[in-house]
């Protein structure tokens, strides 16, 4: 690079890189000075350099390591900082310093530097070269920045000058200028750029360090300033050497030329940038482009469409106050549901089905068809109970206003199964309140405004937990896959319109692969179109983008694990190699995610299947895999070692190798419930034990911890308290029986056991033991043989005796130990 730095003085304290770059160069007298072009170049690069400095400053964040850059130009000394240009190219243009505080004050130039060393000539070629260079370096930067074509501030009369980068920034970098000008204090002492007293600007960073740099004014101002400079200097013209004046003229000329070139370059750059944007915006997603616009355009099962439409039509009497003559008679016959507002019985429509079948499209089209304006609320909106009150209610109650174009509103709630959050303030709860006409404030007696507009809800998973309360109030419409012939036909039309070659076979394959997901089909086709104009089977196979990562249901995974894919279908299906199942199954299991339920289902189902090996050897292996799974999931769940979670699917794959058989498809895997049922019973029983423990005396509590209480005390206690007594009147019992009865009473009172009369299921009176610890001696609903059936009369006898004893000694009880009764609940001995 031919540079003509006559004197460039700079130093900085922090960056050695910049120090290198700014190191004083030996003055090169012989090299031609390209005033204007170089100035463009240099200003650009000064700019860049400052950015760098500021970045540096920002990066180091140390307020003390300030920097000072001072550049002095002697004579026509142009500073070319191409070194910076080169380093600058490495800088990330996107990172723009914004927060540097600069206090810029104009500094009076040191008078020592004269301009007598101005080089004489300059070469056009060199200037062009410089220009190219500038362009290139500009291309690296943002094209916008190239607006600031610097006017060379180094006129012949300048003694020394610093270029104000701050000023420069204010022109070239809008973002920058905001930051700098907002905090900077400009003190322009002299606007006369070409005046004899040229100022360097001294900037002070927030850290207090001083930067001074040469100054340059805007090009627009320049010409005026330049002329005014001329006019003001006109009296001194004679005092100037001719070659200086000539140089000045040349400079002005070349500046004009540079401006022109810059403008041209800018235009080009702008065009280059604009073209691709425009290109991308003109093509829309095919999904939107070919979305059905009318009811007749709809693809899929017509019955479903009609079902939805007829539901919406049922609202007509309520909304539009017109009789639905066609359906009226049939409706009245079908259900004699009479709403005062003539609303249908189910006030909400719940559309459910896998994604991509056109549920949302259908809802919108049908609502429009039926004369409604639609308001869609989807997962992107805030969905809480308050939304129901604000948005939905407002939309519904607005009636026919201007905004609704004279049409009533139909609310479409998309992706409602994703409206999570339980409790009273959930979205679904709010919706139900709205449907049921529950007043917003319970205290007031103002009747709620009844719902007078239809609401359509759309979900993927009909059985999502959040939807459970809504289902009873909704008419559920299940979406099915559209007939694949119809879908293929539609896809072929689309392909024809888009000039994409695709034969029926390929399209059928695509439809099968996406399981009828129209959206996915169209997206895949569009993706292929972006690469080639022919759809080939290979293209479909490889474009895995078309395959959405749909969650697999538990049932599918169970089937996949238990039933091997027949060779025929395996060959037909894509991407499944013979004999290799691990990755396929791991994917399935992983996308299902609910490992716990999955394993439970597998575990509960496998004994129902015919084992592959009569010696039970593979069951043993299977069990060790279950054990392994249990260990893994225990680690993950209890010790939070989530690194292990990735291995869990692999611990389930062996089910396939040990259990999978084609014959298994006769028995569908059932939803696991045995474990949960057992758990529930256990919880109930534990509660019984707890209630027994509460009434037990302290010493017994400490003698029998829960385990021994269950395994030893309760089973034997039940035998102790059911002696073979005869059901006779207490007065005529024999002496030994009386002794037994007494003993029984003495036992039962401190233990807090008692019999209570109750009506059984068949209306017969029965005596129930309280707490009902007799559940612990009933296995499979049967009582052990060695315990005599405790007859009603006997229990009644005992209960009477117990109550009698409690009446006699209500506080101290039969025992001398008061401690037994300190926690005896009062209502125990209340007669019923």
């Amino acid at each position, binding site marked *: 690079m031919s540079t003509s730095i006559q004197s460039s003085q700079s130093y900085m304290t922090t960056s050695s890189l910049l120090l290198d770059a700014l190191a004083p160069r030996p003055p090169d007298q012989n090299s031609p000075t390209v005033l204007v072009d170089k100035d463009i170049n240099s200003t650009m690069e000064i700019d860049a350099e400052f950015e760098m400095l500021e970045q540096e400053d920002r990066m180091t964040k140390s307020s003390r390591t300030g920097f000072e850059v001072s550049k002095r130009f002697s004579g026509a000394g142009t500073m070319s900082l191409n070194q910076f240009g080169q380093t600058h190219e490495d800088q990330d243009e996107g990172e723009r310093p914004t927060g540097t505080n600069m206090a810029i004050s104009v500094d009076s130039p040191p008078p020592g530097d004269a301009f007598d060393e101005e080089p004489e000539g300059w070469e056009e070629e060199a200037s062009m070269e410089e220009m190219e260079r500038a362009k290139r370096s500009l291309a690296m930067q943002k094209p916008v920045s190239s607006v600031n074509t610097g006017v060379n501030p180094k006129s012949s009369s300048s003694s020394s000058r610093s270029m104000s980068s701050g000023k420069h920034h204010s022109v070239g970098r809008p973002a920058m200028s905001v930051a700098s000008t907002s905090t900077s204090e400009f003190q322009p002492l002299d606007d006369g750029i070409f005046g004899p007293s040229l100022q360097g600007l001294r900037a002070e960073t927030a850290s207090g360090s001083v930067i001074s740099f040469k100054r340059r004014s805007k090009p627009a101002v320049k010409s005026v300033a330049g002329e005014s400079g001329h006019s003001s200097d006109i009296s001194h013209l004679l005092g100037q050497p001719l070659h200086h004046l000539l140089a000045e003229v040349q400079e002005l000329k070349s500046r004009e030329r540079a401006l022109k070139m810059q403008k041209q370059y800018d235009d080009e750059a702008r065009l280059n940038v604009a073209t691709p944007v425009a290109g991308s915006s003109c093509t829309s997603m095919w999904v939107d482009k070919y979305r059905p616009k009318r009811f007749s355009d709809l693809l899929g099962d017509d019955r479903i469409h009609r079902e939805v439409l007829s539901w919406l039509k049922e609202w007509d009497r309520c909304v539009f106050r017109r009789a639905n003559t066609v359906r009226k008679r049939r409706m009245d016959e079908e259900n004699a549901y009479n709403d005062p507002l003539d609303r249908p019985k189910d006030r909400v429509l719940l559309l459910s089905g896998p994604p991509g079948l056109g549920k949302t499209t259908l809802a919108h089209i049908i609502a429009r068809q039926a004369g409604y304006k639609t308001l869609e609320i989807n997962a992107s909106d805030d969905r809480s109970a308050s939304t129901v009150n604000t948005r939905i209610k407002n939309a519904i109650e607005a009636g026919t206003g201007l905004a609704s174009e004279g049409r009533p509103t139909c609310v479409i709630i998309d992706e409602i199964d994703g409206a999570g959050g339980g409790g009273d303030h959930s979205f679904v709860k709010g919706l139900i309140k709205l449907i049921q006409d529950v007043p917003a404030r319970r205290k007031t007696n103002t009747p709620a405004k009844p719902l007078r507009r239809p609401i359509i809800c759309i979900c993927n998973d009909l059985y999502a937990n959040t939807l459970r309360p809504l289902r009873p109030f909704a008419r559920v419409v299940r979406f099915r896959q559209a007939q694949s012939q119809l879908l293929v036909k539609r896809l072929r039309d689309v392909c024809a319109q888009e000039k994409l070659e695709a034969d029926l076979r390929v399209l059928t394959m695509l439809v099968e692969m996406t399981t009828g997901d129209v959206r996915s089909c169209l997206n895949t086709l569009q993706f292929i179109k972006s690469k080639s104009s022919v759809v080939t089977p290979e293209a479909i196979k490889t474009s895995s983008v078309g395959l959405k990562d749909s969650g697999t249901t538990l049932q599918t995974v169970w089937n996949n694990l238990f039933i091997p894919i027949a060779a025929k279908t395996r060959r037909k299906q894509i991407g499944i190699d013979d004999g290799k199942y691990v990755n396929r199954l791991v994917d399935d299991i992983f996308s299902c995610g609910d490992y716990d339920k999955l394993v439970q289902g597998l575990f509960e189902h496998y004994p129902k299947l015919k084992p592959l090996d009569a010696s039970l050897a593979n069951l043993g292996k299977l069990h060790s895999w279950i054990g392994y799974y249990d260990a893994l999931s*225990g680690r993950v769940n209890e010790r939070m070692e989530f690194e292990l979670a990735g291995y869990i699917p692999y611990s389930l794959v062996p089910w396939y190798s040990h259990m999978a058989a084609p014959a298994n498809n006769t028995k569908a895997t059932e939803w696991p419930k045995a474990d949960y049922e057992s758990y529930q019973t256990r919880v109930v029983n534990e509660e019984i034990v707890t209630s027994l423990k509460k009434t037990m005396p302290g010493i017994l509590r400490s003698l029998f911890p829960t385990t021994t209480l269950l395994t*030893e005390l309760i089973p034997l206690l039940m035998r102790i308290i059911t002696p073979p007594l005869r059901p006779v009147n207490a007065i005529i019992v024999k002496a030994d029986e009386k002794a037994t009865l007494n003993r029984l009473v003495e036992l039962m009172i401190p233990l807090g056991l008692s019999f209570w009369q109750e009506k059984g299921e068949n209306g017969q009176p029965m005596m129930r033991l309280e707490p009902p610890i007799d559940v612990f001696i009933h296995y499979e609903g049967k009582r052990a043989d060695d315990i005599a059936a405790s007859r009603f009369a006997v229990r009644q006898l005992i209960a009477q005796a117990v109550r009698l004893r409690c009446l006699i000694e209500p506080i101290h009880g039969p025992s001398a130990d008061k*401690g037994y009764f300190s926690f005896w609940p009062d209502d125990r001995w209340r007669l019923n």
Partner: protein
Amino acid sequence: MSLWVDKYRPRTLDELHYHDQLSARLRSLAASGDFPHILFYGPSGAGKKTRIMCTLRELYGPGVEKLRIDQRVFVTPSNRKLDVNVVQSNYHIELTPSDVGMYDRVVIQDILKEIAQTQQVDLNAKQRFKVVIINEADALTRDAQAALRRTMEKYMNNMRLILCAGSTSKIIAPIRSRCLLVRVAAPTDDEMSKVLHHVAKKERFHLPDPASDAIISSSSGNLRKALLVFEAMKMQRPDLSGDLDVAKPDWETYCGKVADAILSEQSAQKLLEIRGKLYELLSHCIPPTVVMKTISERLVEKVDDEVKKQIVHWTAYYELRMRVGSKKIFHLEAFVAKIMMVYKNYTLMGMMDDIDMF
């Protein structure tokens, strides 16, 4: 008047019927004024708890018998509130980890700190320290045991620990080394019959020898159970004569049924049937380890000697798995299937796995 187990429970060290040497040692420990932390261990129903209570009485006098039940609320780290009933007297407090579940560490820490940081205020108290009894110390989680370590040393002035455990193997070594280990062996048959006859004498009836033998053999060294069985039999059949069938807890009978089912047929269908039985046992709150152990005992009674070794081996193997894992039913069923496989191989082919290989 209460159950015989409680009614004829020895209250002082002098009243204890067996392990006289141990009683003498405990007495001298209590008298020495340098009472250590003690870990009582031994089989269930051997009299650990009785000895603990006797020792406490030796230390503090009859005041320890005045038990009260306090309801305490503990807050877990996850801000859940635990309601725990704590049995305590003026001189001691009892903790049972199984009442608390997985948060035993919190409870242990709270209670120990509280006890340890309060001085004995009763000037008439014989000892300056209070005693904390931890029942089923082997059921303490590792965290809780670790929480005990330092407290045991630090608060020695104000507190002594008495741990009560089935075996020392589940108690971490640091705690074992900080305690005086006291083993309470199960009573011999003679000792048990002595106790039973003592009770019979107090109740003023005659206990025929066949009845006492039947009770003793069925309760296998568990005196507490023996006394309960005794009382149950007495209630069911006051004369205790004739054809005696010893009262047996229902779940034990049921475990016997499971064992029979295992031996009757080895197939997946049977496995399904047995699983139902296992669930039935679990829903009756019988601890899974107890279930496994009991089934294994019943099996061992019924099979050939060669298979016995295998059964015991696999019981141990799957009990460990069950403790490591979290889903009990998986391991119980795996155990049953394994036994089925072993038994089937043995009966059909006379073939045995070499268990040393595993």
